[in-house]
């Protein structure tokens, strides 16, 4: 087990450095950040001085080496735009994004688990078909569109919930729905299929034969074993939500990491983009590691001995 964890952590570090290298090179190929920082009448010498001050005038391997060394110490440099430490900017906004991603995941699970189980139990029936349509809607319609519709109907027309910003639970509901609806279809289908397999297995037939109530069989014994594939998806989708919440963050004026990183991409604010990518990569790797380790608890047959 210990060897397995260490091996996975080493693999994760390689993935993080790989992600950094790709972002570092791609960012520099995308254009000159100095052009966005200096006024329009700046001269060639102003450009040269600013590039030198930011270390952008050196051949790529050198700044990458320096950057990697600093990054290992948690120092991603100063934001070009905000004139503040890049990682500090990201970390300040992380709680908002974590809150939104967790709420989105909870919403997705609250829908997907009952829908997946009931669709499997009532295979081909009305609930199965309705669940499919409902879930597919979430996957077919982009999150920002769902967000705008929620704002127009729930916030503006009905005036039930606020339209924007971060505050109490009422502020969280609409963005969480907009963010969480997308994975519902995939989660429902995965759970449904897994439940169908489990419900036809020998031990379930045995439980039925000894007279256990159907509700207990489905919700207590079958669901637990059917959750293993869903656990993988939960990890992946949670990591995706952390990194991909930016559209929802913009729509709902949610002060999170995604919005900050995307705006930094357009401003070519390299330190902020790099800090954001590293954080996303670390979270992605950590969540996936936790998911893999959790298999052993969900299904005792899977152990990393």
């Amino acid at each position, binding site marked *: 087990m210990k060897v397995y964890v260490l091996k996975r952590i080493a693999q994760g570090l390689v993935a993080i450095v790989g992600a950094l290298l790709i972002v570092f090179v791609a960012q520099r190929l995308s254009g000159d950040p100095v052009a966005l920082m200096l006024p329009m009448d700046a001269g060639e010498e102003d*450009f040269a001085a600013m590039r030198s001050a930011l270390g952008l005038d050196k051949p790529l391997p050198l700044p990458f080496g320096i950057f990697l060394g600093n990054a290992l110490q948690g120092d991603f440099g100063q934001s070009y735009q905000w*004139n503040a430490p890049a990682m500090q900017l990201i970390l300040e906004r992380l709680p908002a994004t974590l809150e939104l991603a967790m709420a989105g995941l909870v919403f997705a699970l609250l829908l997907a688990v009952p829908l997946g189980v009931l669709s499997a139990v009532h295979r081909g029936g009305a609930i199965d078909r309705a669940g499919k349509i409902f879930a597919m809607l979430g996957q077919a319609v982009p999150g920002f569109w769902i967000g705008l519709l929620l704002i127009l109907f729930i916030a503006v027309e009905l005036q039930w919930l606020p339209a924007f910003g971060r505050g109490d639970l009422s502020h969280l509901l609409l963005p969480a729905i907009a963010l969480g609806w997308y994975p519902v279809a995939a989660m429902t289908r995965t759970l449904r299929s897994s439940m169908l397999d489990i419900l036809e297995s020998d031990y379930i037939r045995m439980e039925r034969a000894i007279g256990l109530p159907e509700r207990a069989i489905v919700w207590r014994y079958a669901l637990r074993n059917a959750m293993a594939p869903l656990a993988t998806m939960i990890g992946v989708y949670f990591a995706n939500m952390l990194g991909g919440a930016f559209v929802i963050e913009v729509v709902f004026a949610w002060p999170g990491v995604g919005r900050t990183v995307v705006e930094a991409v357009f401003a070519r604010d390299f330190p902020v983009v790099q800090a954001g990518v590293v954080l996303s990569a670390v979270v992605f790797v950590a969540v996936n590691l936790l998911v893999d380790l959790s298999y052993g608890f969900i299904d005792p047959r899977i152990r990393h001995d």
Partner: protein
Amino acid sequence: MDSWGGGRLALPRAARRAMASVLMCVLAASPGHARDITIAFGAEPTQVDPTRSSAGVDLYYTDLFYEGLLTVNADLERVNWLAESWRVVERDGLPLIEITLREGVRFHNGETLTAEDVAFSFKRLTDPESRTAGRLRYVERVDVLDERRLEMVLTGPDGSLEPLNLLLLAIPKGYFEEVGDAGVQAHPIGTGPWRFISRKPRDELVVERFEDYWNPAAAPSPEINRLTIKIIPEDTTRVAAFKTGAVDWIDAVPPAQLAEFKAMEGVRVASLPTPNNLFIGLNAIDPASPFRFEKVRRAAAHAVDFDAIVQYILYGQGIRTAQLAPGSLGYDEALKPWPYDPDRARQLLAEAGFPAGVSVNCYNLTTPREAYIKEMGETVFAYLTEAGIRCRVVQLEYGAWINLARRFARPEMDGVLNTMWGQGLPGDPTDAWAGHVHSAGDGWGNYSYHSDPELDALIEELRTTMAQGRRVELIRHIARLKHERVAGGLPSYRPMITLAWRDTLDFSPWPGAFWRSMRGMGRPGP
């Protein structure tokens, strides 16, 4: 259920609004009941230090806290502000500006404004950390004479004296030196009508009316206490926040929703000119470019129906310009835009030696720096193509677009560029023309893709002419030549911005920070 109660007992919306209005009026009229207001901006500044800022959007915040020696008032007149008086004198063959500061101006920390503070702001604006040092390149130094008097020594005659140099802002020297850059970002202090309370980046800024403000007539009403500025970049969300009553004032009402806002009960709107001047840049210096021929440039001028674009793409939210917008220094009412005439455009192309038309790269801006600018650019390119100037459209995001408009751009802008120049309100074209019309292109804004010795000489004279009457003559003369020769691009329109607020709130728009100056909060508007 909302806070007013829902279900069958809910009051009709009109009744709720009426009750809210009455309540607000009662509260506003009651002594000792200063109101806290929440408003929303569509864009967020990154800097609150005016000497470290390089983007126009930063003015949204800095204009709340800091003030200049001169300012532009609500009637778009340039007036003395922190400078009680100033005059230009000559010494040793060089002009210098003698400035006397107003007495009794206090910073938010209680310190009194002195000449040292203004001199310090010049020093800070021209140090290597500043990104706008070039704006004061004709100022050699600033000498402090006593507590209230200082001299700005120029390197030579400077026509941009008022629009640039005298807008120098006052910053408290002692405080800035004590707290450093990070301290200023954490808590900006100036002489402005609002003082800083708190800021959550990407979320909100909270400010409070400055009780000891030196000019109560140009300050928010005492009925207003705190102002919370929420940042809501998405148009639909900002509009929704206004409709739901979460905010009482918004900027940048989407032009497509202007009619809806005008029809809303209990809502006031103001559509105001922005300091931006949009134009279509044409490369007239590249030997391979067809725009080096005046007839091809005039063909482009006849090819595009900008009136239709303003009416249908912008929902009327643009002021059509031949060269300068009304109110700009030297504006000439008699100068009319080229009429839309595609047949004449095709004829001019044939006369220039291109009977089969020409093909050019047309660069568009896709980032919504102005409302519907992408759609506007695409429409312009469609008009050009229809008249025989066939556009190969290249869509650019902001970073790539601004790079193309700069000097030393690699690669160079080789065809048509959807672009703009700004010089504040009411507007003075001198520095911008020195950029995109003069062949040296060393003024403000876009690089020049034009070369005309006569225009070069006139612009040089304009840059060094300080007498206002002669400046007006020169600007009119240059504008007419520029128009006839379609030199330095094809002017199109000045965009307008629409602000909306609830009529339970008094608001008088001021032009500072692109009309986002909150001086007029609580003051009856026009």
